[in-house]
């Protein structure tokens, strides 16, 4: 009888170690809380809304008058993700939907709150949109879907284009 115990005890001990996982080593949740904007065609005569792919989208942030690196450069897109700045209460973006189109400027004002994502990922930021200002050179109209940017799965804003 004792031999059975002697075999079982180390086996279970080993299995027990394997069953555990070190939470500080894994960051499986998406760390990014980015603002997602979907592009749609302006409602037609029958009030139907259709997704649209804009052929050459260029997007970058403007930080204190300086252009930052491009997030997208002449890419065909139906939606874009905007990384709002976690170190300031507003972010300005430059959006050009076509290489020949007049660019639009998007200004976001928001409040931030820190948020613990997981032991492996550490802290992140939740954004709550306050106001949004946009020039309407190519954008026809804007709709808010969600003002709280707490993950990258939602569509937070929808831009309607005339063409």
């Amino acid at each position, binding site marked *: 009888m004792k031999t059975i*115990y002697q075999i079982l005890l180390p086996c*279970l*001990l080993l299995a027990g170690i394997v069953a*555990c996982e070190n939470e500080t080593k894994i960051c499986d949740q998406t760390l990014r809380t980015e603002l997602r904007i979907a592009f749609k065609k302006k409602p037609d005569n029958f009030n139907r809304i259709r997704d649209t792919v804009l052929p050459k989208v260029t997007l970058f942030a403007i930080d204190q008058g300086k252009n*930052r690196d491009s997030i997208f450069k002449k890419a065909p897109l139906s939606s874009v993700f905007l990384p709002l700045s976690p170190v300031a209460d507003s972010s300005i973006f430059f959006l050009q939907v076509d290489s020949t189109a007049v660019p639009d400027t998007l200004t976001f004002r928001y409040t931030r709150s*820190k*948020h613990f994502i997981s032991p492996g990922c*550490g802290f*992140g930021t939740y954004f709550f949109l306050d106001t949004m200002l946009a020039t309407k050179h190519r954008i026809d109209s804007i709709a808010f879907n969600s003002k709280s940017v707490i993950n990258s799965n939602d569509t937070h804003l929808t831009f309607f284009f005339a063409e």
Partner: protein
Amino acid sequence: MIRILLFSLLSSILTGITVQAQNKPAVIKDTLHKPAADTLRKKGIDTTATAAVKAKDSTYFLPGGIRVGVDLSRIITAIYYPYRKEFTAVADVRLKSDLYGAVEAGYTNTPYSDDNYTYKGSGVFITLGVDYNFMKRLYPSEKNMFYGGIRYGFSHLTYEVPSYKITSPYWGGNLTGSVPKTNVNAHWVELVLGLKAEVLKNFFLGWSLRERILLNNIKTDEFTPLVMPGFGSGSKKSIFDMQYTVSYVFPLYKIKVHVKEKKEKEKKIPKR
């Protein structure tokens, strides 16, 4: 998740094997302790001379005591997970032939730091409950156990995040801050299934599987503690864990067990 499932499957198979192994020789059991029962009862027969039929009642004693031990699995967790510095002491006391009152207590220290944040946590816990031995004894003094148990657990934790950093690869720059000292209490229910084997006189080795279910919410909007003392991960609502204990029983008293005469035999008497 798959790992945990595999582990529980494996352990349940292994447990099944041991239970079978334990049960097989149980047939011998009755023959072994019958003579002892009869000799004890003889005195009774002498005093009650009127009883013409042999009385089947018997009384015998089981070794009782306080068992004290430590959980060795916490040493292994501390090696594998450097941020989990834990100590758990276990104790149980025999209340009835198969019922034990059980208590576990310990403390946890959780120092952790990486590129994103530093964390300090420390706290204590206690669990109280009972264990019930399912295994039939081969002989009255056998102390090996296959048991199931239930516990109520309580722990108190103090944690703080002295510094954290939120970085933005796109915008550049860091946002730093801290979370002040926070106290949090946790309550949980714990289900236990395990074995204890007497490997040397009064010296036991044992393992047990544990399922802990948290009863209150310990997360806040700001932070989730990394480790809750005695419970485990602070971000989970239920935890599967195991324990590997070495313990020593202090045989302080004996438990009197009274075996009543079987009723079937009583019925036979008036028929005569």
